[in-house]
Protein backbone atom coordinates (compact mmCIF):
# COMPACT_ATOMS: atom_id res chain seq x y z
CA UNK A 1 0.00 0.00 0.00
CA UNK A 2 1.30 3.42 -0.88
CA UNK A 3 1.78 5.97 1.86
CA UNK A 4 -1.13 8.04 0.61
CA UNK A 5 -3.68 5.20 0.96
CA UNK A 6 -4.55 6.31 4.49
CA UNK A 7 -3.84 9.97 4.18
CA UNK A 8 -7.05 11.94 3.93
CA UNK A 9 -7.64 14.68 1.46
CA UNK A 10 -8.73 17.94 3.08
CA UNK A 11 -9.87 19.86 0.01
CA UNK A 12 -12.25 18.33 -2.49
CA UNK A 13 -15.58 19.21 -4.09
CA UNK A 14 -19.00 17.68 -3.45
CA UNK A 15 -19.02 16.33 -7.00
CA UNK A 16 -15.72 14.53 -6.35
CA UNK A 17 -17.13 13.08 -3.12
CA UNK A 18 -20.18 11.84 -5.04
CA UNK A 19 -17.96 10.06 -7.57
CA UNK A 20 -15.79 8.55 -4.82
CA UNK A 21 -18.84 7.25 -2.92
CA UNK A 22 -20.29 5.92 -6.18
CA UNK A 23 -17.19 4.02 -7.23
CA UNK A 24 -16.93 2.38 -3.79
CA UNK A 25 -20.30 0.67 -4.35
CA UNK A 26 -18.85 -1.40 -7.18
CA UNK A 27 -17.15 -4.72 -6.33
CA UNK A 28 -14.50 -6.54 -8.33
CA UNK A 29 -16.79 -9.53 -8.97
CA UNK A 30 -19.77 -7.43 -10.07
CA UNK A 31 -21.17 -7.53 -13.58
CA UNK A 32 -21.80 -3.86 -14.19
CA UNK A 33 -24.00 -2.21 -16.80
CA UNK A 34 -21.81 0.77 -17.63
CA UNK A 35 -23.98 3.70 -18.64
CA UNK A 36 -23.12 7.09 -20.06
CA UNK A 37 -22.37 10.27 -18.17
CA UNK A 38 -21.24 10.23 -14.50
CA UNK A 39 -21.49 6.43 -14.09
CA UNK A 40 -18.96 6.14 -16.86
CA UNK A 41 -16.50 8.09 -14.69
CA UNK A 42 -17.30 6.15 -11.51
CA UNK A 43 -16.85 2.78 -13.25
CA UNK A 44 -13.56 3.99 -14.76
CA UNK A 45 -12.37 4.98 -11.27
CA UNK A 46 -13.45 1.64 -9.76
CA UNK A 47 -11.51 -0.18 -12.45
CA UNK A 48 -8.36 1.82 -11.63
CA UNK A 49 -8.81 1.58 -7.84
CA UNK A 50 -10.24 -1.71 -6.58
CA UNK A 51 -11.93 -3.58 -9.45
CA UNK A 52 -9.16 -4.71 -11.83
CA UNK A 53 -11.26 -7.63 -13.14
CA UNK A 54 -14.60 -5.82 -13.40
CA UNK A 55 -16.79 -7.06 -16.27
CA UNK A 56 -18.79 -4.31 -17.98
CA UNK A 57 -21.68 -4.38 -20.41
CA UNK A 58 -22.38 -1.33 -22.61
CA UNK A 59 -25.81 -0.71 -24.14
CA UNK A 60 -24.46 -0.46 -27.67
CA UNK A 61 -23.82 -4.22 -27.38
CA UNK A 62 -20.27 -4.54 -26.09
CA UNK A 63 -18.70 -6.48 -23.20
CA UNK A 64 -15.25 -5.71 -21.78
CA UNK A 65 -13.06 -6.43 -18.79
CA UNK A 66 -10.13 -4.17 -19.63
CA UNK A 67 -9.92 -0.44 -20.09
CA UNK A 68 -9.65 0.76 -23.65
CA UNK A 69 -6.08 1.27 -24.83
CA UNK A 70 -4.62 3.83 -25.14
CA UNK A 71 -5.67 4.16 -21.54
CA UNK A 72 -8.02 7.09 -21.92
CA UNK A 73 -11.63 7.78 -21.17
CA UNK A 74 -13.88 6.88 -24.12
CA UNK A 75 -15.99 9.91 -25.03
CA UNK A 76 -19.15 7.83 -24.84
CA UNK A 77 -20.50 4.28 -24.93
CA UNK A 78 -20.20 4.37 -28.72
CA UNK A 79 -16.54 5.37 -28.94
CA UNK A 80 -14.83 3.17 -31.56
CA UNK A 81 -11.75 3.00 -29.32
CA UNK A 82 -13.71 0.48 -27.22
CA UNK A 83 -14.05 -2.11 -29.98
CA UNK A 84 -10.55 -3.56 -30.40
CA UNK A 85 -10.28 -3.82 -26.58
CA UNK A 86 -13.51 -5.69 -25.96
CA UNK A 87 -14.49 -9.33 -25.40
CA UNK A 88 -17.72 -9.23 -27.38
CA UNK A 89 -19.37 -6.87 -29.82
CA UNK A 90 -22.93 -7.50 -30.98
CA UNK A 91 -26.23 -5.64 -31.08
CA UNK A 92 -27.98 -3.57 -28.42
CA UNK A 93 -30.35 -6.51 -27.99
CA UNK A 94 -27.42 -8.62 -26.76
CA UNK A 95 -26.66 -6.09 -24.03
CA UNK A 96 -30.28 -5.53 -23.03
CA UNK A 97 -30.97 -9.27 -22.96
CA UNK A 98 -28.15 -9.82 -20.46
CA UNK A 99 -30.03 -7.35 -18.30
CA UNK A 100 -33.39 -9.04 -18.87
CA UNK A 101 -31.93 -12.46 -18.00
CA UNK A 102 -30.99 -11.04 -14.59
CA UNK A 103 -27.23 -11.25 -15.02
CA UNK A 104 -26.38 -7.60 -14.23
CA UNK A 105 -25.50 -7.25 -10.54
CA UNK A 106 -24.98 -3.49 -10.37
CA UNK A 107 -25.55 -0.33 -12.39
CA UNK A 108 -25.16 3.36 -11.73
CA UNK A 109 -27.25 5.98 -13.50
CA UNK A 110 -27.06 9.74 -13.40
CA UNK A 111 -30.44 11.35 -13.63
CA UNK A 112 -32.29 14.66 -13.69
CA UNK A 113 -34.91 14.11 -10.98
CA UNK A 114 -35.62 11.36 -8.48
CA UNK A 115 -38.53 10.92 -6.04
CA UNK A 116 -38.65 9.22 -2.64
CA UNK A 117 -39.38 5.81 -4.18
CA UNK A 118 -36.41 6.03 -6.52
CA UNK A 119 -38.44 6.71 -9.67
CA UNK A 120 -36.76 9.06 -12.11
CA UNK A 121 -37.72 11.62 -14.72
CA UNK A 122 -35.44 12.52 -17.62
CA UNK A 123 -38.29 13.26 -20.03
CA UNK A 124 -40.28 16.45 -19.37
CA UNK A 125 -41.11 19.16 -16.90
CA UNK A 126 -44.75 20.05 -17.52
CA UNK A 127 -47.21 18.15 -19.74
CA UNK A 128 -45.75 15.44 -22.00
CA UNK A 129 -47.05 16.81 -25.30
CA UNK A 130 -46.42 20.51 -24.53
CA UNK A 131 -43.59 20.57 -22.00
CA UNK A 132 -42.24 23.62 -20.20
CA UNK A 133 -38.82 21.97 -20.44
CA UNK A 134 -38.07 19.05 -22.69
CA UNK A 135 -35.30 16.76 -21.37
CA UNK A 136 -33.40 14.11 -23.40
CA UNK A 137 -35.41 10.97 -22.66
CA UNK A 138 -34.36 7.84 -20.89
CA UNK A 139 -32.41 5.87 -23.49
CA UNK A 140 -31.43 2.57 -21.91
CA UNK A 141 -32.02 3.84 -18.37
CA UNK A 142 -35.60 2.52 -18.34
CA UNK A 143 -34.36 -1.05 -18.71
CA UNK A 144 -31.36 -0.59 -16.47
CA UNK A 145 -33.64 0.74 -13.70
CA UNK A 146 -36.16 -2.01 -14.31
CA UNK A 147 -33.88 -5.01 -14.40
CA UNK A 148 -30.64 -4.39 -12.44
CA UNK A 149 -30.14 -6.11 -9.06
CA UNK A 150 -28.49 -3.14 -7.33
CA UNK A 151 -29.31 0.19 -8.94
CA UNK A 152 -27.52 3.33 -7.79
CA UNK A 153 -28.81 6.79 -8.74
CA UNK A 154 -26.36 9.67 -8.97
CA UNK A 155 -27.69 13.21 -8.55
CA UNK A 156 -24.94 15.80 -9.07
CA UNK A 157 -26.80 18.66 -7.34
CA UNK A 158 -28.53 18.00 -4.03
CA UNK A 159 -31.55 20.34 -4.33
CA UNK A 160 -35.33 20.28 -3.93
CA UNK A 161 -35.77 20.50 -7.68
CA UNK A 162 -33.64 17.42 -8.30
CA UNK A 163 -34.76 15.35 -5.30
CA UNK A 164 -38.37 16.13 -6.07
CA UNK A 165 -41.60 15.70 -4.16
CA UNK A 166 -43.49 14.82 -7.32
CA UNK A 167 -42.39 13.88 -10.84
CA UNK A 168 -44.26 15.04 -13.94
CA UNK A 169 -43.27 11.84 -15.73
CA UNK A 170 -41.71 8.52 -14.76
CA UNK A 171 -39.03 7.61 -17.31
CA UNK A 172 -37.28 5.00 -15.19
CA UNK A 173 -39.05 2.77 -12.68
CA UNK A 174 -37.93 2.78 -9.07
CA UNK A 175 -40.31 1.33 -6.48
CA UNK A 176 -43.24 3.11 -8.24
CA UNK A 177 -45.77 3.83 -5.41
CA UNK A 178 -43.72 2.01 -2.77
CA UNK A 179 -44.43 -1.25 -0.87
CA UNK A 180 -45.02 -4.07 -3.39
CA UNK A 181 -46.10 -1.91 -6.34
CA UNK A 182 -42.92 -2.59 -8.30
CA UNK A 183 -43.41 -6.34 -7.88
CA UNK A 184 -47.05 -6.08 -8.95
CA UNK A 185 -45.97 -4.25 -12.11
CA UNK A 186 -44.02 -7.39 -13.05
CA UNK A 187 -40.42 -6.43 -12.29
CA UNK A 188 -38.20 -9.26 -11.00
CA UNK A 189 -38.25 -9.53 -7.17
CA UNK A 190 -34.48 -9.24 -6.69
CA UNK A 191 -34.16 -5.93 -8.55
CA UNK A 192 -34.58 -2.22 -7.79
CA UNK A 193 -32.89 0.91 -6.47
CA UNK A 194 -30.25 0.29 -3.81
CA UNK A 195 -29.22 3.88 -3.13
CA UNK A 196 -29.24 7.52 -4.17
CA UNK A 197 -25.85 9.21 -4.02
CA UNK A 198 -25.50 13.00 -4.06
CA UNK A 199 -22.66 15.40 -3.19
CA UNK A 200 -24.11 15.45 0.36
CA UNK A 201 -24.97 11.89 1.24
CA UNK A 202 -26.04 8.33 0.51
CA UNK A 203 -29.71 7.40 0.87
CA UNK A 204 -30.98 3.82 0.95
CA UNK A 205 -34.46 2.33 0.72
CA UNK A 206 -36.65 0.91 3.49
CA UNK A 207 -37.18 -2.80 2.96
CA UNK A 208 -40.95 -2.61 3.60
CA UNK A 209 -42.16 0.83 2.48
CA UNK A 210 -39.43 1.18 -0.20
CA UNK A 211 -39.05 4.83 0.75
CA UNK A 212 -35.60 6.45 0.65
CA UNK A 213 -33.97 7.44 3.95
CA UNK A 214 -30.69 9.14 4.88
CA UNK A 215 -28.08 6.56 5.87
CA UNK A 216 -24.62 8.03 5.26
CA UNK A 217 -23.49 11.67 5.47
CA UNK A 218 -20.50 12.83 3.50
CA UNK A 219 -17.83 14.63 5.58
CA UNK A 220 -18.77 18.06 7.00
CA UNK A 221 -22.39 17.76 5.85
CA UNK A 222 -25.21 17.97 8.44
CA UNK A 223 -28.55 16.19 8.61
CA UNK A 224 -30.26 19.60 8.50
CA UNK A 225 -28.47 20.52 5.28
CA UNK A 226 -29.68 17.31 3.65
CA UNK A 227 -33.26 17.70 4.89
CA UNK A 228 -33.47 21.35 3.84
CA UNK A 229 -32.37 20.54 0.30
CA UNK A 230 -34.56 17.49 -0.26
CA UNK A 231 -37.97 17.98 -1.86
CA UNK A 232 -39.86 15.60 0.42
CA UNK A 233 -39.88 15.09 4.20
CA UNK A 234 -36.84 12.82 4.26
CA UNK A 235 -36.72 10.01 6.81
CA UNK A 236 -33.47 9.57 8.74
CA UNK A 237 -31.77 6.32 9.82
CA UNK A 238 -31.66 5.72 13.58
CA UNK A 239 -27.91 5.95 13.44
CA UNK A 240 -26.63 8.07 10.59
CA UNK A 241 -23.01 7.29 9.76
CA UNK A 242 -20.68 10.12 8.81
CA UNK A 243 -17.86 8.87 6.64
CA UNK A 244 -14.25 10.07 6.68
CA UNK A 245 -12.86 12.40 4.05
CA UNK A 246 -11.59 10.48 1.03
CA UNK A 247 -8.03 9.14 0.96
CA UNK A 248 -5.65 11.08 -1.28
CA UNK A 249 -5.29 8.09 -3.59
CA UNK A 250 -9.02 8.02 -4.40
CA UNK A 251 -9.11 11.74 -5.04
CA UNK A 252 -6.06 11.52 -7.29
CA UNK A 253 -7.72 8.86 -9.44
CA UNK A 254 -10.95 10.84 -9.38
CA UNK A 255 -9.21 13.97 -10.67
CA UNK A 256 -7.29 12.07 -13.32
CA UNK A 257 -10.60 10.63 -14.52
CA UNK A 258 -12.24 14.07 -14.52
CA UNK A 259 -9.35 15.55 -16.51
CA UNK A 260 -9.60 12.71 -19.03
CA UNK A 261 -13.35 13.34 -19.30
CA UNK A 262 -12.79 17.06 -19.95
CA UNK A 263 -10.33 16.13 -22.70
CA UNK A 264 -13.19 14.17 -24.25
CA UNK A 265 -15.48 17.21 -24.18
CA UNK A 266 -17.46 16.29 -21.05
CA UNK A 267 -18.85 19.52 -19.60
CA UNK A 268 -18.03 19.77 -15.89
CA UNK A 269 -19.27 22.77 -13.90
CA UNK A 270 -16.61 25.13 -12.54
CA UNK A 271 -17.67 24.44 -8.94
CA UNK A 272 -16.88 20.74 -9.42
CA UNK A 273 -13.39 21.29 -10.79
CA UNK A 274 -12.00 23.81 -8.27
CA UNK A 275 -9.00 21.65 -7.35
CA UNK A 276 -8.26 20.06 -10.72
CA UNK A 277 -5.43 22.41 -11.65
CA UNK A 278 -3.87 22.50 -8.20
CA UNK A 279 -2.28 19.03 -8.20
Amino acid at each position, binding site marked *: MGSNDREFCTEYTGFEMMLVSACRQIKNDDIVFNAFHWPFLAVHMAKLLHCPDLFSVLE*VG*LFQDELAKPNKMPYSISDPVLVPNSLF*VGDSIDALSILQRGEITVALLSTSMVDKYGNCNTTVIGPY*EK*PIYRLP*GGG*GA*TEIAGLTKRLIWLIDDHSKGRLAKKLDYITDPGYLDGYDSRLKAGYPPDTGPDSIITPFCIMRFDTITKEAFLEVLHPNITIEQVKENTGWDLKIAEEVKQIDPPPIKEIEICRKTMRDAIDQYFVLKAEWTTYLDKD
Partner: protein
Amino acid sequence: MSKITTKIMSMKEAIGKNVKNGDLIFLGGFGNGMTFSAAHEMIRQKKRDLKVSKCGGGILFDQLIGAGVTNHIITSHCWNGTGPQPAWNLKRAMEEEIPQKIIYNEQSLFMINMSFFAGYMGIPFVPIRSIVGTGIFDHPKEVGLKAATVECPFTGEEICVVPAMNPDVGVIQVQRADSEGNAQMWGLIGDTKYGINACKKIIVAAEEIVDKKIIMESPERTIVGAHKVDAVVHEPWGAHPSSVQGFYYTDLEYRFNYAKETKTIEDWENWLEKWITGVNDRQEYLKVLGEEKIKFLKANSLIQGAVDYGF
Protein backbone atom coordinates in the same frame (compact mmCIF):
# COMPACT_ATOMS: atom_id res chain seq x y z
CA MET B 1 -36.29 -5.14 -60.23
CA SER B 2 -34.44 -6.13 -63.38
CA LYS B 3 -30.94 -7.43 -62.84
CA ILE B 4 -29.64 -5.10 -65.52
CA THR B 5 -30.64 -1.90 -63.74
CA THR B 6 -27.77 -0.72 -61.60
CA LYS B 7 -28.47 0.19 -58.01
CA ILE B 8 -25.46 2.50 -57.82
CA MET B 9 -26.57 6.11 -57.73
CA SER B 10 -25.91 9.44 -56.01
CA MET B 11 -27.42 10.26 -52.62
CA LYS B 12 -29.52 12.89 -54.41
CA GLU B 13 -31.06 10.23 -56.67
CA ALA B 14 -31.40 7.66 -53.88
CA ILE B 15 -33.36 10.01 -51.61
CA GLY B 16 -35.31 11.52 -54.53
CA LYS B 17 -36.45 8.14 -55.83
CA ASN B 18 -37.16 6.39 -52.55
CA VAL B 19 -38.32 8.87 -49.89
CA LYS B 20 -41.86 10.28 -50.09
CA ASN B 21 -43.34 12.97 -47.85
CA GLY B 22 -45.08 11.34 -44.89
CA ASP B 23 -42.96 8.17 -44.94
CA LEU B 24 -41.75 6.40 -41.79
CA ILE B 25 -37.94 6.37 -42.05
CA PHE B 26 -35.30 4.33 -40.22
CA LEU B 27 -31.86 5.88 -39.93
CA GLY B 28 -29.10 3.47 -38.91
CA GLY B 29 -26.14 3.85 -36.59
CA PHE B 30 -25.64 4.02 -32.82
CA GLY B 31 -22.96 6.73 -32.51
CA ASN B 32 -20.99 4.87 -35.16
CA GLY B 33 -22.15 5.07 -38.80
CA MET B 34 -24.92 7.62 -38.36
CA THR B 35 -26.54 8.58 -41.66
CA PHE B 36 -25.79 12.31 -41.71
CA SER B 37 -25.25 12.54 -45.46
CA ALA B 38 -28.68 10.99 -46.17
CA ALA B 39 -30.38 13.24 -43.60
CA HIS B 40 -28.77 16.33 -45.14
CA GLU B 41 -30.06 15.31 -48.57
CA MET B 42 -33.60 14.95 -47.16
CA ILE B 43 -33.24 18.51 -45.87
CA ARG B 44 -32.00 19.85 -49.25
CA GLN B 45 -34.88 18.13 -51.04
CA LYS B 46 -37.33 19.74 -48.59
CA LYS B 47 -38.97 16.47 -47.60
CA ARG B 48 -41.90 17.07 -45.25
CA ASP B 49 -43.89 15.25 -42.57
CA LEU B 50 -41.41 12.39 -42.30
CA LYS B 51 -41.66 10.20 -39.22
CA VAL B 52 -38.12 9.29 -38.25
CA SER B 53 -37.00 6.41 -36.05
CA LYS B 54 -33.71 5.29 -34.55
CA CYS B 55 -32.48 4.18 -31.14
CA GLY B 56 -30.91 7.53 -30.21
CA GLY B 57 -31.81 10.62 -32.24
CA GLY B 58 -28.90 12.87 -31.27
CA ILE B 59 -27.98 15.91 -33.31
CA LEU B 60 -29.07 14.10 -36.47
CA PHE B 61 -32.73 14.26 -35.41
CA ASP B 62 -32.11 17.76 -34.10
CA GLN B 63 -31.19 18.88 -37.64
CA LEU B 64 -34.20 17.14 -39.24
CA ILE B 65 -36.45 18.86 -36.70
CA GLY B 66 -34.87 22.30 -37.16
CA ALA B 67 -35.15 22.08 -40.95
CA GLY B 68 -38.85 21.20 -40.74
CA VAL B 69 -38.38 17.78 -42.36
CA THR B 70 -39.87 15.76 -39.52
CA ASN B 71 -42.81 16.43 -37.22
CA HIS B 72 -42.70 13.04 -35.51
CA ILE B 73 -39.68 11.35 -33.95
CA ILE B 74 -39.62 7.84 -32.54
CA THR B 75 -36.59 7.29 -30.32
CA SER B 76 -35.37 6.62 -26.80
CA HIS B 77 -33.13 9.67 -26.44
CA CYS B 78 -32.55 12.92 -28.32
CA TRP B 79 -29.77 15.23 -27.13
CA ASN B 80 -26.26 16.29 -28.08
CA GLY B 81 -24.18 13.47 -26.62
CA THR B 82 -21.04 15.62 -26.59
CA GLY B 83 -20.99 17.49 -23.31
CA PRO B 84 -23.75 16.33 -23.03
CA GLN B 85 -25.56 19.48 -24.13
CA PRO B 86 -29.14 20.26 -25.16
CA ALA B 87 -30.43 19.57 -28.67
CA TRP B 88 -31.77 23.10 -29.20
CA ASN B 89 -34.00 22.44 -32.22
CA LEU B 90 -35.72 19.63 -30.32
CA LYS B 91 -36.27 21.96 -27.37
CA ARG B 92 -37.57 24.79 -29.57
CA ALA B 93 -40.00 22.46 -31.32
CA MET B 94 -41.28 20.83 -28.13
CA GLU B 95 -41.40 23.95 -25.96
CA GLU B 96 -42.27 26.69 -28.50
CA GLU B 97 -43.51 24.84 -31.62
CA ILE B 98 -40.64 26.33 -33.69
CA PRO B 99 -40.46 25.62 -36.61
CA GLN B 100 -43.56 23.50 -36.00
CA LYS B 101 -45.29 21.32 -33.42
CA ILE B 102 -43.73 17.88 -33.27
CA ILE B 103 -44.55 14.61 -31.57
CA TYR B 104 -41.75 12.94 -29.63
CA ASN B 105 -42.80 9.33 -29.30
CA GLU B 106 -40.37 8.43 -26.54
CA GLN B 107 -39.61 4.74 -26.24
CA SER B 108 -37.18 2.90 -24.03
CA LEU B 109 -34.01 1.64 -25.70
CA PHE B 110 -35.15 -1.97 -25.40
CA MET B 111 -38.63 -1.14 -26.67
CA ILE B 112 -37.40 0.47 -29.88
CA ASN B 113 -34.83 -2.25 -30.48
CA MET B 114 -37.46 -4.95 -29.98
CA SER B 115 -39.96 -3.11 -32.20
CA PHE B 116 -37.38 -3.27 -34.98
CA PHE B 117 -36.65 -6.89 -34.04
CA ALA B 118 -40.34 -7.83 -34.36
CA GLY B 119 -40.34 -6.07 -37.74
CA TYR B 120 -37.17 -7.95 -38.68
CA MET B 121 -38.79 -11.26 -37.69
CA GLY B 122 -42.03 -10.53 -39.53
CA ILE B 123 -44.19 -10.93 -36.41
CA PRO B 124 -46.64 -8.40 -34.92
CA PHE B 125 -45.16 -7.92 -31.42
CA VAL B 126 -42.62 -9.16 -28.88
CA PRO B 127 -42.71 -9.29 -25.07
CA ILE B 128 -40.28 -7.34 -22.87
CA ARG B 129 -40.05 -7.01 -19.09
CA SER B 130 -39.15 -3.41 -18.60
CA ILE B 131 -41.61 -0.58 -19.12
CA VAL B 132 -44.81 -1.13 -17.11
CA GLY B 133 -45.44 1.69 -14.60
CA THR B 134 -43.49 4.29 -16.57
CA GLY B 135 -44.75 7.21 -18.62
CA ILE B 136 -43.52 5.42 -21.74
CA PHE B 137 -46.13 2.70 -21.17
CA ASP B 138 -48.90 5.22 -20.49
CA HIS B 139 -48.48 7.47 -23.55
CA PRO B 140 -51.70 8.78 -25.08
CA LYS B 141 -52.74 7.10 -28.35
CA GLU B 142 -51.96 10.23 -30.42
CA VAL B 143 -48.28 9.68 -29.71
CA GLY B 144 -48.43 6.63 -31.96
CA LEU B 145 -46.90 3.19 -31.44
CA LYS B 146 -47.35 2.15 -27.86
CA ALA B 147 -46.94 -0.88 -25.68
CA ALA B 148 -49.65 -3.08 -24.13
CA THR B 149 -49.81 -6.07 -21.81
CA VAL B 150 -51.01 -9.59 -22.61
CA GLU B 151 -51.45 -12.76 -20.60
CA CYS B 152 -48.76 -15.28 -21.44
CA PRO B 153 -50.59 -18.35 -22.85
CA PHE B 154 -48.01 -20.69 -21.28
CA THR B 155 -47.49 -19.33 -17.76
CA GLY B 156 -50.50 -17.06 -17.30
CA GLU B 157 -48.26 -14.16 -16.25
CA GLU B 158 -49.11 -10.67 -17.46
CA ILE B 159 -46.32 -9.36 -19.69
CA CYS B 160 -45.62 -6.17 -21.63
CA VAL B 161 -45.57 -6.41 -25.42
CA VAL B 162 -44.26 -3.91 -27.95
CA PRO B 163 -45.49 -3.60 -31.55
CA ALA B 164 -43.47 -4.35 -34.68
CA MET B 165 -42.10 -1.42 -36.63
CA ASN B 166 -41.62 -1.79 -40.39
CA PRO B 167 -40.42 1.59 -41.72
CA ASP B 168 -41.18 2.54 -45.33
CA VAL B 169 -37.56 3.41 -46.03
CA GLY B 170 -34.29 2.68 -44.22
CA VAL B 171 -30.83 4.16 -44.72
CA ILE B 172 -27.53 2.87 -43.37
CA GLN B 173 -23.95 4.10 -43.63
CA VAL B 174 -21.59 1.11 -43.62
CA GLN B 175 -17.91 0.42 -44.17
CA ARG B 176 -18.39 -1.43 -47.45
CA ALA B 177 -20.93 -2.84 -49.87
CA ASP B 178 -20.90 -4.39 -53.30
CA SER B 179 -22.75 -2.81 -56.21
CA GLU B 180 -25.80 -5.01 -55.60
CA GLY B 181 -26.13 -3.83 -51.99
CA ASN B 182 -24.65 -6.64 -49.91
CA ALA B 183 -23.60 -4.43 -47.03
CA GLN B 184 -21.00 -5.09 -44.35
CA MET B 185 -20.69 -3.32 -41.03
CA TRP B 186 -18.38 -4.06 -38.12
CA GLY B 187 -17.70 -2.48 -34.76
CA LEU B 188 -20.61 -0.86 -32.95
CA ILE B 189 -23.88 -1.77 -34.65
CA GLY B 190 -26.48 -0.98 -31.97
CA ASP B 191 -29.91 -1.29 -33.63
CA THR B 192 -28.73 -1.15 -37.24
CA LYS B 193 -28.98 -4.79 -38.36
CA TYR B 194 -32.52 -5.41 -37.10
CA GLY B 195 -33.68 -1.90 -37.95
CA ILE B 196 -32.60 -1.99 -41.58
CA ASN B 197 -33.95 -5.48 -42.24
CA ALA B 198 -37.37 -4.40 -40.92
CA CYS B 199 -37.59 -1.75 -43.68
CA LYS B 200 -39.62 -2.01 -46.90
CA LYS B 201 -37.15 -0.03 -49.05
CA ILE B 202 -33.43 0.19 -48.34
CA ILE B 203 -30.69 2.66 -49.24
CA VAL B 204 -27.13 1.52 -48.50
CA ALA B 205 -24.46 4.22 -48.31
CA ALA B 206 -20.92 2.87 -48.08
CA GLU B 207 -17.45 4.23 -47.48
CA GLU B 208 -16.18 1.80 -50.13
CA ILE B 209 -17.79 -0.13 -52.97
CA VAL B 210 -16.07 -3.49 -53.24
CA ASP B 211 -16.23 -6.58 -55.40
CA LYS B 212 -18.69 -9.27 -54.32
CA LYS B 213 -15.67 -11.56 -53.68
CA ILE B 214 -14.58 -9.32 -50.80
CA ILE B 215 -18.02 -9.67 -49.23
CA MET B 216 -17.80 -13.45 -49.53
CA GLU B 217 -14.45 -13.56 -47.71
CA SER B 218 -16.12 -12.69 -44.38
CA PRO B 219 -19.87 -13.17 -44.92
CA GLU B 220 -20.69 -12.90 -41.19
CA ARG B 221 -20.04 -9.17 -41.43
CA THR B 222 -22.94 -8.72 -43.86
CA ILE B 223 -25.88 -7.05 -42.10
CA VAL B 224 -28.28 -6.82 -45.04
CA GLY B 225 -28.42 -8.79 -48.28
CA ALA B 226 -28.70 -7.45 -51.84
CA HIS B 227 -32.16 -8.93 -52.45
CA LYS B 228 -33.67 -6.27 -50.17
CA VAL B 229 -31.62 -3.27 -51.29
CA ASP B 230 -32.96 -0.61 -53.66
CA ALA B 231 -30.09 1.85 -53.90
CA VAL B 232 -26.34 1.77 -53.28
CA VAL B 233 -24.51 5.06 -52.75
CA HIS B 234 -20.74 5.40 -52.68
CA GLU B 235 -20.52 8.05 -49.98
CA PRO B 236 -17.12 8.43 -48.27
CA TRP B 237 -17.33 10.33 -44.96
CA GLY B 238 -21.12 10.06 -45.11
CA ALA B 239 -21.36 9.57 -41.33
CA HIS B 240 -19.36 12.63 -40.26
CA PRO B 241 -19.52 13.97 -37.49
CA SER B 242 -20.03 10.43 -36.17
CA SER B 243 -17.42 7.72 -36.61
CA VAL B 244 -16.97 4.75 -38.91
CA GLN B 245 -14.74 2.06 -37.43
CA GLY B 246 -11.56 1.72 -39.48
CA PHE B 247 -12.25 4.91 -41.47
CA TYR B 248 -12.62 7.97 -39.24
CA TYR B 249 -13.16 9.04 -35.65
CA THR B 250 -15.97 11.11 -34.17
CA ASP B 251 -15.58 14.87 -34.65
CA LEU B 252 -15.97 15.84 -31.01
CA GLU B 253 -15.01 19.47 -31.54
CA TYR B 254 -17.66 19.93 -34.26
CA ARG B 255 -20.32 18.24 -32.14
CA PHE B 256 -19.35 20.24 -29.09
CA ASN B 257 -19.52 23.52 -31.05
CA TYR B 258 -22.84 22.51 -32.62
CA ALA B 259 -24.55 23.22 -29.30
CA LYS B 260 -23.38 26.82 -29.09
CA GLU B 261 -23.76 27.37 -32.86
CA THR B 262 -27.46 26.37 -32.84
CA LYS B 263 -28.62 27.85 -29.56
CA THR B 264 -30.82 30.56 -31.09
CA ILE B 265 -32.96 30.28 -34.21
CA GLU B 266 -30.65 32.75 -36.02
CA ASP B 267 -27.58 30.71 -35.09
CA TRP B 268 -29.29 27.57 -36.33
CA GLU B 269 -30.24 29.15 -39.65
CA ASN B 270 -26.61 30.16 -40.21
CA TRP B 271 -25.42 26.67 -39.32
CA LEU B 272 -27.98 25.10 -41.68
CA GLU B 273 -26.85 27.34 -44.54
CA LYS B 274 -23.15 26.70 -43.91
CA TRP B 275 -23.26 22.93 -43.62
CA ILE B 276 -26.40 21.74 -45.44
CA THR B 277 -28.38 24.03 -47.71
CA GLY B 278 -25.32 25.99 -48.87
CA VAL B 279 -23.66 22.86 -50.27
CA ASN B 280 -24.86 20.54 -53.02
CA ASP B 281 -23.62 17.21 -51.79
CA ARG B 282 -21.19 15.42 -49.48
CA GLN B 283 -18.18 16.34 -51.60
CA GLU B 284 -18.90 20.03 -51.13
CA TYR B 285 -19.60 19.49 -47.43
CA LEU B 286 -16.14 17.98 -47.08
CA LYS B 287 -14.62 21.10 -48.65
CA VAL B 288 -16.28 23.16 -45.91
CA LEU B 289 -14.93 20.73 -43.33
CA GLY B 290 -11.43 21.22 -44.69
CA GLU B 291 -8.46 18.99 -45.42
CA GLU B 292 -6.80 19.58 -42.09
CA LYS B 293 -9.80 18.32 -40.11
CA ILE B 294 -10.21 15.34 -42.44
CA LYS B 295 -6.60 14.39 -41.88
CA PHE B 296 -7.02 14.75 -38.12
CA LEU B 297 -10.11 12.51 -38.00
CA LYS B 298 -8.85 9.77 -40.31
CA ALA B 299 -8.49 6.49 -38.38
CA ASN B 300 -5.09 4.95 -37.76
CA SER B 301 -5.20 1.57 -39.42
CA LEU B 302 -5.50 -1.43 -37.07
CA ILE B 303 -5.94 -4.63 -39.06
CA GLN B 304 -6.44 -7.70 -36.88
CA GLY B 305 -8.37 -10.92 -36.48
CA ALA B 306 -7.62 -13.03 -39.54
CA VAL B 307 -9.21 -16.49 -39.10
CA ASP B 308 -9.07 -19.82 -40.91
CA TYR B 309 -12.25 -20.60 -42.88
CA GLY B 310 -10.92 -23.98 -44.00
CA PHE B 311 -13.14 -27.08 -44.16
